Every structure is written in structure tokens, then in C-alpha cells.
């Protein structure tokens, strides 16, 4: 039986994280030993009957009080600052990160790569490439936890959350659900496989573990859904009376009827489909039906398709041309 002392360092966050962790550990040991030693030393030295000088004991000393208030406070502020800085890094993915979508449900993880490859309770990622996970839960709250990457993010129902990382070494790492989610909570886990970039590309192109290449991409599936639901009747290539066009929607700033300005993020688009009255674009009526029956997977596919219609920064192609060529790397 082995007794490991620390988890593998396998992401860009691991080393800076451990540096802070070890400093905090050192401080903990230092103060514990300091207090413990003082207490024991005083207690033994001044034990009853031991003839030592007990004169001049005071019952308060302002200088001492200020000292032992100020030192922990200052140390604490330094630690706070250091930790907050690292935290900010973990919450700000680079713009060119590769995107993978994750759906949590009782009791499994489901991942979708943008080219249509899917996996359950496993996630393959390339080494050295920033990866951004967009995650949502179908039921209760879960939490996506990879100890070797030092990352954890709750996965909520009804709202997308994000996590990013760069895997720094190839290997097989633990994936856990860290938020209690019911009977088989402890079995809602699996493995992250970090592969060298070329190998990862090969794996992705070959259709993943199930070896099903050339699956329809997420955007393809989204387009099929877009056609089946006849979204184009109201949201065509041009703004119509009934609804605004979705071209160039993603990432743009939209003005709402109540005067507020909202950025068209994935969460916004998801809400606009599921629950169109929450926010209404200026100049339009609330006439859109609620598509409440769509699954989280459908919604992710639709959003993937809408992204291929161009972002605010890069005008999209005309309708019908959104083939795989444009999508490759397009789902940023």
C-alpha cells in the first residue's frame, strides 16, 4: 500500500497553486509550533511548586496586543492578495481556448467536442492547448473537479458555468463530482486523458473512443434543429418584423426594451430560446413561443450553430454555407 502525499501537477494552475499551498502550510506549522511551544514551556516552567520568579506579571499590555493583532492581519492580507490574484487567473480563459461542452446529470458526465465526438465519464484533451469548458447540469448541482489540475467549478442547472485550463503533461487523471448530488454521487466520476496535440487531433478525427469518424458536428445538429423548428421563419438572414436576425448575434451587444444593454453570450442565447420573455430586444414584441422542451444538448447544438452565423467581431457566412470548413476551430 502506498501513501501518496500530494496530487500530480498536471495543469498550468498546479505549480502556482502548490507554491501558495506550501507557504500556507509552512505558516500553519510555524504558528502551531510557536503557540504550542510557548504554551507548553510556560505551563511546565510555571507549574505549581516550581520555584521560579513570578513577580511583575501584568494583566494587559497594549504593545503586545497591537503586535499580535497586526502581524496576523498583515500576513493575512498578503495571503488574501496572493490567492485572489491566482483565482482571477483561473477565471479568465484566453480568447483562443478550444471549447468543449460538458453536461452533468445524475450520475454521469457527458462531454461534446465541437466536431461531434461525444464521450461519457471521460474527457480527452490536448496537452499544451488552453481548453475552455462550458458546463451545465440537467438536474441538480454538480461540481467538476480534477485534483491533478487543481480546478473545481460547480455545474448548475439553468445556467452555464465555465472553467479553463492547460494540461501540462500527458496522462490519465481523476475526474470527480465534488458537489453532493444523490445516491451514486461517489460514482459520478471518471478520467481525464491528456494527449499530446497530434495524438489528440488523430483521436478526434478518428471519432473518439467509439471510432465513429465524420459524425455530424454540433453546429450541423444545431442547423438541423434550426430547420426543423423553422426558426428562419422569424430569424432569417435579415431582421424581420417578427424577429431580429441571428447573423452576427453572438458576442454582440443588444439593447432591450427596458433600456438595458446585454451581451449575447451563450447563457443569454440559451435563456432567449427557453424563456424568450425574460429579456426582449428593443423594437420587438414578445411573440416568440417558449421552447421549454429542448434538452440541454439541443440548446448547446443550437448555440454552436448560431455561433457559426458569425460573431460581432467576424461577420459570418451567408445561410447555407456554414459547412464544417467554417466550423473548424470556429466554436471558440
Amino acid at each position: 500500500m502506498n501513501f501518496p502525499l500530494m496530487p500530480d501537477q498536471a495543469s498550468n494552475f498546479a505549480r502556482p497553486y502548490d507554491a501558495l499551498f506550501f507557504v500556507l502550510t509552512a505558516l500553519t506549522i510555524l504558528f502551531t509550533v510557536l503557540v504550542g511551544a510557548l504554551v507548553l514551556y510556560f505551563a511546565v516552567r510555571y507549574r505549581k511548586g516550581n520555584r521560579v520568579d513570578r513577580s511583575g506579571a501584568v494583566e494587559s499590555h497594549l504593545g503586545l496586543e497591537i503586535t499580535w493583532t497586526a502581524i496576523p492581519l498583515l500576513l493575512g492580507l498578503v495571503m488574501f492578495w496572493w490567492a485572489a490574484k491566482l483565482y482571477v487567473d483561473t477565471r479568465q480563459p484566453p480568447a483562443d481556448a478550444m471549447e468543449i461542452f460538458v453536461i452533468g446529470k445524475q450520475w454521469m458526465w457527458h462531454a461534446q467536442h465541437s466536431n461531434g465526438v461525444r464521450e461519457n465519464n471521460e474527457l480527452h484533451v490536448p496537452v499544451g492547448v488552453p481548453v475552455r469548458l462550458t458546463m451545465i447540469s440537467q438536474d441538480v448541482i454538480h461540481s467538476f473537479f480534477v485534483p491533478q489540475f487543481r480546478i473545481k467549478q460547480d455545474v448548475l442547472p439553468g445556467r452555464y458555468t465555465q472553467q479553463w485550463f492547460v494540461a501540462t503533461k500527458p496522462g490519465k487523471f481523476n475526474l470527480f463530482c465534488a458537489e453532493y448530488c444523490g445516491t451514486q454521487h461517489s460514482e459520478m466520476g471518471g478520467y481525464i486523458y491528456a494527449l499530446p496535440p497530434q495524438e489528440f487531433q488523430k483521436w478526434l478525427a478518428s471519432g473518439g473512443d467509439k471510432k465513429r469518424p465524420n459524425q455530424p458536428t454540433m453546429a450541423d445538429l444545431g442547423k438541423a434543429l434550426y430547420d426543423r423548428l423553422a426558426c428562419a421563419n422569424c430569424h432569417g438572414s435579415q431582421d424581420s418584423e417578427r424577429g431580429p436576425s441571428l447573423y452576427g448575434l453572438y458576442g454582440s451587444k443588444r439593447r432591450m426594451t427596458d433600456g438595458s444593454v446585454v451581451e449575447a453570450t451563450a447563457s443569454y442565447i440559451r435563456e432567449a430560446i427557453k424563456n424568450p420573455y425574460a429579456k426582449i430586444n428593443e423594437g420587438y414584441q414578445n411573440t416568440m413561443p417558449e421552447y421549454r422542451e429542448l434538452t440541454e444538448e439541443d440548446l448547446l447544438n443550437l448555440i454552436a450553430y448560431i455561433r457559426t452565423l458569425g460573431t460581432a467581431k467576424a461577420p459570418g457566412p451567408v445561410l447555407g454555407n456554414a459547412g464544417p470548413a467554417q466550423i473548424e476551430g470556429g466554436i471558440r
Partner: protein
Amino acid sequence: MSTAAPVLHGESPKAPPSYLQAGHTIKSWLLTGDHKRIAVLYLIAVSVFFFFGSLAASMIRVELVSPRGVMLESDTYNKVFTAHGIIMIFFFLIPAIPAVLGNFLLPIMIGARDLAFPRLNLLSWYLYMAGGLCGVLAIAFGGVDTGWTFYTPYSSMYSNTNVTLTIIGAFIAGFSSIATGINFIVTVHKMRAPGMTWFRLPLMVWSSYATSLIIVLGTPVVAITLLLVVMERVFHIGVFSPELGGDPVLFQHLFWFYSHPAVYIMILPAMGVINEVITCFTRKRIFGYHFIAFSSLAIAGLGFLVWGHHMFVSSQSMYQGMVFSLLSYLVAVPSAIKVFNWTATIYKGSVRFQTPFLYVLGFMGLFVVGGLTGLFLAAMSTDVHLTDTYFVVAHFHYVMVGGTIMGFLAGLHFWWPKFFGRMYPDSWGKLSALLIFAGFNLTFLPQFVLGYLGMPRRYHYYYFAPEFQFWHIASTAGASILAVGFLIPAVYLLWSLKYGEPAGPNPWGAKGLEWTIPSPPPTTNFLETPVVREEPYAYDAEAEEREDQSKEPIRA
């Protein structure tokens, strides 16, 4: 005993019967208004709950010896850890020190005949028992599996266990602590004896007062929150369920708004006990009285502003997290102030290594580790990896078990002669203190490592990562020692009720009003209202040592 003359009134020749002798019928106990009897009722009740909570803990530890479990289904395992959490938090840790030691001592320490509202005090015990009964019934009818945190939407829409009944139990128990809190606040404000100014109050009274403030301000919020969960389960009104337009994270905010301060409800009274015991067994005046008193209030105040540090990975905004993290560092400072002041109190004292003092040493060792590891969890970045792992489990056990239970045992051993008028065998007491300290560390130090390795909490199986097993086995081994450590006091304390040496009014030579009256005290505590003429903790180690040395011949 002591040379100073705080004797406000001695034992009169025709002493009235003690509170234990004033009526022997069951009715005289169950309808009593006497705060001391209610404290004993609470002592019995919390001990029973502690026993069942520990039983659940033992099942958890046995189960985790193997990566695939030993005897339970996952379903049952989840119910067991939920039962452990709910029993220990709502029915042991929160009431233990305030309702047992506080109830018994608070009126005596300030020179009052009783709490301001004796009937409300009795009502609070009945509410506690009613809440406990609901909890017991919920377990008997099949248990509940949400964890003590009741996170939505799992608790409100998905779990098909007895969530409603359990929540009603916690809700009722909440009103029991509210009743105690109101009673303490009014008593401290209005019932102090002549001369008992605010800055002559024993520090235990200060910390009970601060605790009561937290109870009064926090508990109603969790009560309404849990009620909303029940309404969502029963009537489908959707305040927390995203399917019904609500927000599950709102539940977490409301829940932790109470439940983080609740940690201070558990630890502040223990800190209060430490002040009383440490001064007595070092024969020293407390160092920095005002700093300790005000740090209790600072903890009570700041404690309400840090709840968000439970939610750094819950999707709350980054800036919100920063504010909570910063405030969490600030709330650590008053605790540090207390620890340093206690250390300084020992300096130049006359230290007696008797059982209560050993528990105080244990408290200081464990609380320092518990407090410092809290800094890992208040720091936003380190919290990301450690939250919801065994690191958190180890941290809060160091604070709650290492802090609250060590404080409770220190207080129980200190005031046991006052409660029941008899002494327990000191050597067994010392042995149990050592066993608990050693067993505790062996149980929970490995869990810090487990948490850092990534073992999530509330996990039944860990076959995905069998390398965790070594640390789990170490932890279970420690838990067995801990169990023995807890059993020994149960035996010798019960034994002492009948066979212990009579203690007399002041077996420790301690200061404070409670030691000026007989043990066990008469029903009205004081035969005549005491008048307080001196500062608290009027010990003089130097003088006592001098006197001792003058008595005995100098050793050759």
C-alpha cells in the same frame, strides 16, 4: 482555599436543600423552571444525541476502510452521513455549551436567582426535544439523504427521502435556540447583581452574550429558508428551483448567512469556557480582558459578513468572492487575539495539571490547527481545490470537535463538582484527555492529506482512486482511539455521581460567584443577593506560591 475574601455569603448553618434535592418526582423535573435542572435535562439529551451521532460517525469510518465499502449500500451510506451531520450540528454542537453549561452558570455567574424567563427556558428544552423527535422519526421512517446542508434543488425537487420531516425538526430546534438566545440577552442586560458591571462579567458571560446575538440574528433566517424548501417540496412554489424560475444559489446564500455564523455559535461558548478554566488552573488574572471581551463581539459581527467563502466555486461573481475572502481574513484576527492572550495568561502563573486544564491544552492545540487551516479555505485560489474535499471535513472537525467538544469537556470537568457536588477520579480524567487528543489527531490529520490529494467529501466509494486507502485506514484507526477516549469519561462521570468524593463549594480554589455557593447549589442559587466588589479572576499566583512555600519545608 483562597486568601482573598470574595466570600459574599458562606454556607449558612441551616442550608436549604440543593436544587437536586428540591423534589424527586418526574413531574418536578419535567415542569421545572429552575435553570440548573433544565441544564441537567439538556445535558442528558445532548449526551444521548452525541452517542447516536458518534455511532453514525463510526459507521462512516468503518465503511471507508475499503475503496468499495464494507457493509452499506450507497443509499444507506448517504443517510448515515446526513444523520451524523444533522444530529451533531443541530442537536449536539449548537446547544451543548450554551444550553448545558450556559444555562447552569450564566445566572449564577452574574449573581441572579434564575434566568429572566424561566418558563421560556423550559419551553426551549421542549422545543429542542420536539425537534429531536422529528429528526429521530425521520430516521426511523427511512432516513434522509441530502446532507445537513439541504442544498437545492436536490433537497427541494429530487430527493425522495424524509426531507420535510427532518427540516421541520431542524426548524423547531431553531426556535429552541432562539428562545435561549433571547433569555440570555435579557438576563445579561437586566439581571446582573449590584456591582456586577459589564467589565466585571466573567468572559464566559461575554461570549455567551455574543453567541446569543448571533442566534437571535441568524437562526430566523435559516428557519425561513428551510421553510421555503419545504414549501417548494410540498406546494411546488419555486423560489429555489430553476425549473420554476427560481435560483438554487439563492438558497446557498441564505443558508450560509446563518450557517457560517453558526460555526461561531458553536465555538464562542467554548472559548468562554477556556477563559474560566485557564485562569483557575494558572491562578492568574486573564491577560487582556477587554481584548478578549471585544474580540467575541467582533467575531459575532464579522461572522455575519463572510458567508460567501463557502461559495467560491458556486458561480458567484469574482468581485463578490474577493470581498468575502478579505472579510474572512479579518474574522480570523479576533480568534488569534484570544489564543495569544491565553498564552500570555499562562506566563508567570501557578499551573496545575488537572483534568480541566489538560482539556484546555488540547483545545488550544486543536483550535490553532483548525483556525489556521481555515485560512486555506478563506483564500480564494486554495479554496477552489480544497472545498468539498476531506480538507474541509478535517478543518471543521478541528474547529468543532477540537474546539467545541474539547471546550465542552473542559467545562464539564471543571463544573461537574458544582453540578452534582462530587469529584471524579482525576487520573482517569487525564487519561481520557490524552486519548481524545491523540485519537483526534490521528483521525483528522490524515484527512488533510486526503483532501489535498483530492478525495471529495460525502463519497461512499473511492475505487477511482484506490491510493487514498492508506490515509482512510489511518483515520479509522484514530477514530477507534477517539471512541475509547469518549467512552471513558461517560463511565467515570456516571460512577462519580454515586461514589465520587463530596466536592465542597470550591474544590479548585477558583474565583467567581458560582464557587461561593454550595455544590450542588440551592434552587435560588443565592440566599441573599450578592454584592460584587472586585474585578473578575482576582487570582494572585505569586502570593499563592509564596504561601505554599512558607507552609512546606524547603526540599533538601
